[in-house]
């Protein structure tokens, strides 16, 4: 077990394509870090640089006290779980688990003990003599986990390990990974493009975009105070509504509607405003903004109404029994508004320009 220190790391491929730039990340011993972002954001590349499967072009990666830039993957004391499991198809489950230990000349008795323990932990004992092809997707996933566990590595690296599973299995395996990591206390880096997976697993989330870190923080931090429009749109489901608006003094103009801000305006002029679907509430006619409903998504516990405010798309989340009419009036508590720079998309802190009467973007709820 060890801390991992990633400093100023970048990746430039032959031919000058830059995949990752200037990543700084201190991962504490035993921490569960999730790298999340859309495909092509560089999250897998970053993970693979930590694993030693990609050369590090710039910066340094330290595992424990050792800089591992030039260290072979096998000597980095890490274990990796791959998306397609990468089990050796010609070996039995037991042989798959043993292979890495044998290559390290671990004593036979020790190997057996570790394999049996891992198998018990993952409930795959009865499959130890089967070949991977005789296993279901979920079982293969467990074997892949087992292969990582028996190594007792300093860190687990997960490369989208659940994306080949069906939705239901994914949820249960997610829980299991979390439970195992808690129990073993092994530092983990987990790559996913699924924001829900990221939210549920992470001690800290790292949101990546275009090869750079957009935001690092606890899942709730990131959810409640997204650092940019990118993070705001990526984390949370349904995605945060982002609409163009204009600050006119203490008033916010969204299309034809004006919202009074009670001193929350961070700046003036054009901004992008973020409104969480669940923060929007229905008010009586002519009180808030007019909302033209286009269609409704039924989720059972919730109803999502998609429609327009002015000419901008907005989604609101309502309780399962809420009544929905063609035109509704909606409003939001000014303290729940998120402001972003209209040009850069970076978050603007409302507190900056106002009298500090209101407790501004502290995590609410």
């Amino acid at each position, binding site marked *: 077990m060890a801390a991992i220190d990633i400093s100023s790391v970048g990746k430039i491929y032959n031919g000058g394509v830059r995949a990752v730039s200037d990543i700084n990340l201190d991962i504490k011993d035993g921490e569960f870090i999730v790298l999340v972002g859309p495909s092509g954001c560089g999250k897998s590349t970053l993970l693979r640089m930590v*694993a*030693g*499967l990609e050369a590090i072009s710039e910066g340094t990666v330290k595992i424990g006290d050792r800089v591992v830039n030039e260290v*072979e*993957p*096998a*000597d980095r004391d*890490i*274990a*990796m779980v*791959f*998306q*397609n*499991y*990468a*089990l*050796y*198809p*010609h*070996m039995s489950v037991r042989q798959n688990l043993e*292979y*890495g230990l044998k*290559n*390290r000349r671990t004593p036979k008795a020790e190997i057996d003990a570790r394999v049996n323990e891992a198998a018990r932990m993952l409930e795959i004992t009865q499959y130890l003599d089967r070949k991977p092809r005789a296993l279901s997707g979920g079982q293969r996933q467990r074997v892949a986990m087992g*292969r990582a566990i028996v190594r007792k590595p300093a860190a687990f690296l997960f490369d989208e390990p659940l994306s080949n599973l069906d939705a239901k299995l994914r949820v249960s395996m997610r829980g299991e990974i979390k439970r195992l990591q808690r129990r073993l206390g092994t530092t983990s880096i987990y790559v996913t493009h699924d924001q829900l997976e990221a939210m549920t697993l992470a001690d800290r989330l790292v949101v990546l975009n275009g090869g750079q870190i957009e935001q690092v923080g606890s899942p709730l931090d990131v959810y409640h105070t997204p650092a940019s429009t990118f993070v705001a749109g990526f984390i949370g489901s349904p995605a945060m509504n982002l609409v163009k608006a204009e600050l006119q003094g203490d008033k916010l103009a969204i299309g034809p509607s004006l919202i009074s801000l009670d001193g929350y305006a961070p700046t003036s002029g054009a901004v992008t405003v973020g409104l969480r679907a669940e923060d929007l509430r229905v008010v009586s006619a002519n009180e808030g903004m007019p909302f033209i409903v286009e269609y409704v998504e039924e989720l059972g516990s919730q109803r999502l109404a998609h429609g327009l405010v002015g000419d901008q798309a907005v989604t609101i989340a309502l309780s399962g029994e809420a009544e929905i009419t063609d035109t509704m009036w909606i409003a939001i508590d000014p303290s729940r508004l998120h402001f972003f720079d209209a040009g850069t998309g970076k978050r603007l802190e409302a507190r900056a320009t106002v009298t500090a009467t209101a407790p501004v973007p502290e995590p609410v709820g």
Partner: protein
Amino acid sequence: MYRTRFSDHLVLIVGALFLCTPVVVAFMTSTHTAADIHMNGLSLTWGGNFIDTYEKVLTQKGGFTGEITGTSMVINSLILGVGFAVGKIVLSMLAAYAIVYFRFPMATLSFWVIFTTLLLPLEVRIMPSYQVMSELGLLNSYTGLIVPLLASATGTFYFRQFFKSVPEELLEAARIDGAGPFKFFIDILVPISRTMIAAIFIIMFVYGWNQYLWPMLMTTDERFFTLMRGIKSILQVWIGSQIPDYNEAFALAVLAMLPPVAIVVIFQSWFIKGLTESDK
């Protein structure tokens, strides 16, 4: 849902008959005596002379030196087939491994040097190849028979294609598990290539066994004659004889086609897989 029509079966039956009848006739005719064949022509029925004919073909010493039997030709054909197949697999697996799994400056050049051989079959450079062999003193030797046939990229190409289809993560997982180039090759790559190796062995064995032109040029010493070379000789003896040994010629033909046909029929699925998934 398509309903099978009678005409479909008819076409297939005619096709199967066209393809298979000659083989059946060859076998059946070989069980008749030469005189019988001379009188009655080819036959679709059992002739009863099976043991005599095949015993004679397999054991009677013939040729100019009197040292050659059907059995020795079968053995030579086997040596050529197996030697060629094994040599091909070893050479081409190693070469393909280097090309696919290593990063080195000469990779592209090596690739081209090897794969250019796909463009020119042995037949068009037969004369100078013969001269090279005679300069190297390799005429009438198993080395001379087998090794020059290995100078083509087909096997390398098969394995290159196959290695490229092996999931990347397998190498990555193996490296994290501490496997170096040799360990990865022996522990992972060779075992997962087993089916491929078997399929290529079959294809290459058939190819080697069926070689005709090259053995014909390389071997003047009858001790090295293969079955294909024997067929050529039996036809040369033929010219001018009153009643040619039809039965023996057919028996030789049957011996020459039996192993490849049997292999193809028995290992059909491997064979087809090997052919269609890589012979391109």
